[in-house]
């Protein structure tokens, strides 16, 4: 018989062997793990999507999770030069007067087959017409579903532009417009103009589950939805009949990690392959297996002058202030070097960008002499309104205002910083109570009109998005002329002239075009981040 002592020792031995085994297993896990993780990509995103239908929202987080992953559009933007490229429509034709646009659809576009829907046909004109009529036709049986809100289309007054959508045959449709609008194609190529399945919608209507169209999405995109747990994860499977060819990975997972440090940790420990909006760029740069990517976004952060109020009704004063502000210092301190200097309101990536426009040179003597010319020899006191929230185009308006305050002190201007709670702030600025204001603008599509009209046109002084309250007839004529033509070279010339007027009049002082950042493990190949719109996982692969 064995003694108790031996028994205890035996148990101890078993226990230790057990622990050693578990440890050993987890250590050698790396080798066996390859099969699944090698074929899957985990993307750490910053938040949960509000809906799975981009038609109904404007938030960037939702766009990232839906548009390019689940859906296709008639046309899209070429990521390299932001020109318009074919999508579901293989070609299109615009009549000379710009009022009729005919789209010729592809015949090989399949919808997703999922646990909740099996399509019986490929995409045709009915689906396209259904998708747009849902937005346009207030009587449409799907219009009120999910609240009847289509914010992007409502903001561009889509229903005013489109008169009718006609079905020519199963694979040809024609948009009839009320008036020519050269930003129309750009609007159709935005992330919001996705194509849904009419067959699925009819099935849901029969089952009386219409709302599910925006919750359990069916699209034609490279991935289909497998499961979604709010606040936790979104799991996508590849769409095996994707018309551009099946993607190279087996699973795409959005690991929803709102905390900045949480995302960074998961990147450093390889739990995430790609992360959104990384912090600690230096730390990421130190690691040879990680890549930090930046893409200039279509936005502008600016200091707007209220041109209706003294002293900024005087162009010399506006110029003096513009020359007195050290832009580079702001870029370093507020954007941490993560932005491009803005010379005009148009970012470099836009085709309307004009090289000939030079930056307002930072020069105190020049600014002083301008101020003397304007008759403010001893300077004056002014207010700078700084927005209270953080935006990509302006991560810290208060710091920016303080820097500007110090700069202006040098030419004898005393600046007071004013800030209100965001809603009050916007209301008061729209009423023109400010003298100068730090604000910004993010474009909805790469068409340059999306910068000109909302920021500086006469009509937008009334709607409230022109915070400089600057109205210049010549400028307005130029941007109207640019919209009425489809000739891009012609438009370029009009916009160059318009930009020259802005540079001469300085209704606002452009500061920066900020960048969007993303970090990834170098095993992940393929472009994800585009200068415009949501992220796109259709071209990724893993080594």
């Amino acid at each position, binding site marked *: 018989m064995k003694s108790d002592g031996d028994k205890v020792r035996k148990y101890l031995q078993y226990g230790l062997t057990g622990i050693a085994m578990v440890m050993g297993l987890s250590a050698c*896990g790396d080798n066996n793990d390859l099969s699944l993780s090698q074929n899957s990509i985990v993307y750490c995103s910053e938040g949960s999507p509000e809906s799975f239908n981009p038609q109904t929202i404007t938030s960037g987080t939702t766009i990232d999770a839906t548009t390019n992953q689940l859906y296709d559009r008639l046309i899209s933007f070429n990521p390299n030069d932001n020109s318009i490229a074919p999508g579901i429509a293989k070609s299109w034709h615009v009549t000379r007067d710009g009022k009729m646009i005919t789209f010729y659809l592809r015949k090989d576009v399949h919808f997703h087959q999922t646990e909740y829907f099996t399509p019986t046909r490929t995409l045709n004109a009915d689906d396209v017409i259904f998708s747009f009529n849902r937005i346009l036709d207030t009587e449409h049986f799907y219009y009120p579903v999910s609240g009847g809100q289509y914010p992007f289309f409502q903001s561009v007054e889509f229903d005013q532009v489109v008169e009718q959508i006609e079905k020519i045959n199963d694979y040809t449709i024609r948009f009839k417009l009320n008036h020519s609008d050269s930003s129309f194609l750009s609007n159709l190529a935005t992330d919001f103009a996705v194509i849904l399945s009419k067959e699925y919608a009819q099935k849901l209507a029969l089952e009386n589950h219409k709302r599910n169209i925006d919750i359990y999405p069916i699209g034609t995109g490279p991935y289909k939805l497998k499961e979604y747990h709010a606040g936790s994860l979104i799991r996508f499977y590849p769409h095996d009949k994707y018309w551009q060819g099946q993607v190279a990975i087996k*699973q795409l997972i959005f690991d929803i990690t709102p905390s900045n440090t949480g995302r960074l940790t998961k990147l450093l420990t390889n739990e995430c392959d790609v992360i959104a909006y990384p912090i600690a760029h230096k730390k990421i740069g130190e690691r040879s297996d990680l890549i930090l990517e930046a893409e200039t976004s279509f936005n502008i952060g600016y200091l707007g002058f209220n041109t209706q109020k003294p002293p900024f009704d005087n162009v010399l004063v506006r110029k003096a202030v513009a020359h007195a502000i050290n832009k580079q210092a702001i870029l370093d301190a507020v954007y941490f070097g993560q932005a491009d200097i803005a010379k005009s309101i148009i970012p470099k990536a836009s085709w309307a960008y004009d090289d000939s426009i030079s930056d307002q040179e930072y020069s105190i003597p020049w600014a002083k002499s301008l101020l003397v010319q304007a008759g403010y020899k001893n300077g004056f006191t002014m207010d700078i309104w700084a927005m209270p929230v953080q935006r990509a185009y302006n991560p810290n308006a208060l710091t920016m205002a303080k820097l500007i305050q110090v700069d202006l002190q040098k030419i004898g201007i005393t600046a007071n910083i004013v800030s209100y709670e965001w809603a009050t702030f916007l209301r008061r600025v729209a009423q023109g109570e400010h003298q100068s204001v730090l604000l910004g603008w993010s474009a909805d599509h790469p068409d340059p009109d999306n910068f000109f009209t909302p920021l500086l046109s006469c009509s937008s002084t009334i709607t409230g998005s022109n915070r400089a309250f600057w109205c210049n007839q010549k400028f307005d004529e130029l941007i109207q002329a640019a919209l009425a033509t489809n000739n891009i070279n012609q438009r370029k010339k009009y916009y160059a002239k318009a930009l020259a007027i802005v540079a001469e009049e300085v209704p606002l002082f452009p500061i920066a075009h900020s960048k969007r950042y993303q970090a990834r493990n170098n095993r992940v190949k393929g472009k994800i981040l585009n200068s415009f719109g949501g992220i796109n996982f259709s071209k990724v692969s893993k080594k």
Partner: protein
Amino acid sequence: MLLFSLRRLNLLLFTILLLTLLSFSLSYLFPGDPLINITGRVLATPEQLEVLRQQYAFDQSVIEQYWSYLVHIANGDLGVSMSSHIAISTEVLSVMPATIELTITALIIAMFFGVPIGFIAAIKHKKTTDNIILAVAMLGYSIPVFWLGLLAILVFSIQLGWLPSAGQISLLYEIKYVTGIQLFDIMLSDSEYKWQAFQDASSHIILPACVIALAPATIFVRIARTAMMEVLESSYIRAANSKGLTFKQIIYRHAIRNASVKVVRHIGLQFANLVTIAMVTEMIFNWPGIGRWLIESIYQRDYTAIQGGLLILSSFIFIVHIITDFIYAALNPIARDTHYGS
């Protein structure tokens, strides 16, 4: 034994009644309409609210309101979450197993290391080994858990890259929810990556479980040390010694067994402590348990969830206490004569 059992059940009943009273009064103490706080129906229409008002007797006196609240609890209805609009009971049931899995693993780790080390310290009483063990135990007990958790992530996940930093399992593996205890669910699943998933899940649990285990382990060290010292000084050990048994024989055959009985009791008492530590740790390691769920409910001002979650969690801890008391009493007849619950 009958008297003992009755006394304990009585205690259980009254404590839970008190807890419900506290939980009920919270709906009045939280800001907002008490009826909405108690039901969580923030989206209810005025008509639906009227129905709820009658169901919860909110048109009658507070006593009746409390009574109808008790009736709802007895039927398992704790209202719905204000943020997700899912029943609180469903939510708690889905997060509770993860916490149980984590705390039990931590408890096993704490016992596995704490008790033997405590015995060694007692055997080497007043020698350098004893002093070192006591000093380290003191240090381990004083380290705040949130700091230890972050430090563990920094060292083992980021610097060394040995173990993952967050979650219960890599999201790549699709494990069907059966029991909620991940390691069991993996065994029950028919995934082709079952074995990989099991390894992945075990590597995920090691770090948080060890962090939770540290504080209770140090307590076990001290309890085991005291228990062993008491046993070693008892007369039957001296008798065995004088009979000429070797030191090894005395320790293995007599001392360990008798000292272990004394330790068992404290394991149950450590459970409340363990759950508290687990709540913080779950937050740091993003573990999908009740602690993280409760803390997130606090962030979201989800009063119904806070109310229901606290009630369930405290009742759970209390029930575990009573059960360990019963087990201890069954093992040790002397305890049954103790008149006051401790």
